[in-house]
């Protein structure tokens, strides 16, 4: 039956931990710096339209999150026998439903609200 390969000579079980390497951290750090610096520069210098800038910085954020997951959090599909990835996918599904649902519902609520005077400070 499944003999623990990490079973040491002294009978002490080593817990399986993700193996980190200098290479991973260096690649992750350099990519993060690039992926952070470009959005900041785009917003501070404004070489592009607001709409395009927004799309680009959102794309950069998504890529940077993946970079952090892979190089800093050592996520692999095989980590913890696949259970890490399974729980991550579950969390992402719930988050997408929650975010998209909230925005969708609240947008329709706002649209159907009674119009308010333009300047709210005029209200009693």
């Amino acid at each position, binding site marked *: *039956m*499944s003999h*623990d390969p990490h079973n040491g000579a002294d009978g*002490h*079980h*080593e*817990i399986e*931990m*993700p*193996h*980190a*390497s*200098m290479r*991973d*951290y260096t690649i*992750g*750090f350099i990519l*993060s*710096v690039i992926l*952070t610096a470009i*959005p*900041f520069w785009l*917003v*501070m210098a404004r070489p592009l339209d*607001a709409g395009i*800038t*927004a799309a680009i*910085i*959102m794309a*950069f*954020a998504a890529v*940077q*999150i993946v970079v*952090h*997951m892979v190089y*800093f*959090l050592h996520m692999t599909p095989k980590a*913890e026998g696949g*259970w*890490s990835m399974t*729980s*991550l996918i*579950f*969390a992402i599904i*719930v*988050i997408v439903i*929650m*975010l998209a649902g*909230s*925005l969708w519902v*609240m947008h329709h609520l706002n649209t159907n609200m009674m119009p308010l005077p333009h*300047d*709210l*400070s005029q209200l009693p």
Partner: protein
Amino acid sequence: MSTTTLSAAEGLAPADEPVQFYELNEHPHPEGHSTMLGFWIYLMSDCLIFAILFACYAVLGGNYAAGPAPKDLFDLNLIALNTAMLLFSSITYGFAVLGMQQGKLRMTQIWLGVTGLFGAAFLAIELYEFAHLIHLGATPQRSAFLSAFFTLVGTHGLHVTFGIIWLVTLMVQLGKHGLVAANRRRVMCLSMFWHFLDVIWIGVFTFVYLMGMLR
């Protein structure tokens, strides 16, 4: 485990032997064997807390109540500095993990200390920003935008605070017991927590600060 059950599991059992769908023998469960996965699942639940706060901010972020808007309040230079602090603390934590893997206690402690200093610098800058906003009259009570802003960014800051408390505790534990199995596990858990906070910060600086300036 006997060979009988093994072959039964593979569907090669002779017809006269009953197929077993359960195991009678106990597996060895080494101490802490499920800690990493359990901690990961905790992080996923923490992710849901932040997702709710992000959703609140996305819904309420435009309701200024004739008060100040992000453009009037945020200083991107300060946020860039803050982001750099957190990014540096991520790589220095990486060095601490590498030190631990090589069994170098002193190196692990030094890099953990450096990480803590970067984390403290991040917190100091954030508290300075909050104090500045409150001084300007942009308090959480001012508008729905500011309530959502302070809740989201403040919750992240609170996580960093607890991360630093944990880090100091871990340094004391490392000093007392060295790189024993339990401490190695703790270093890896805090590593996950710390890098996770950095991932949340990517969302904060992108959606709150950068998108706020574009509005």
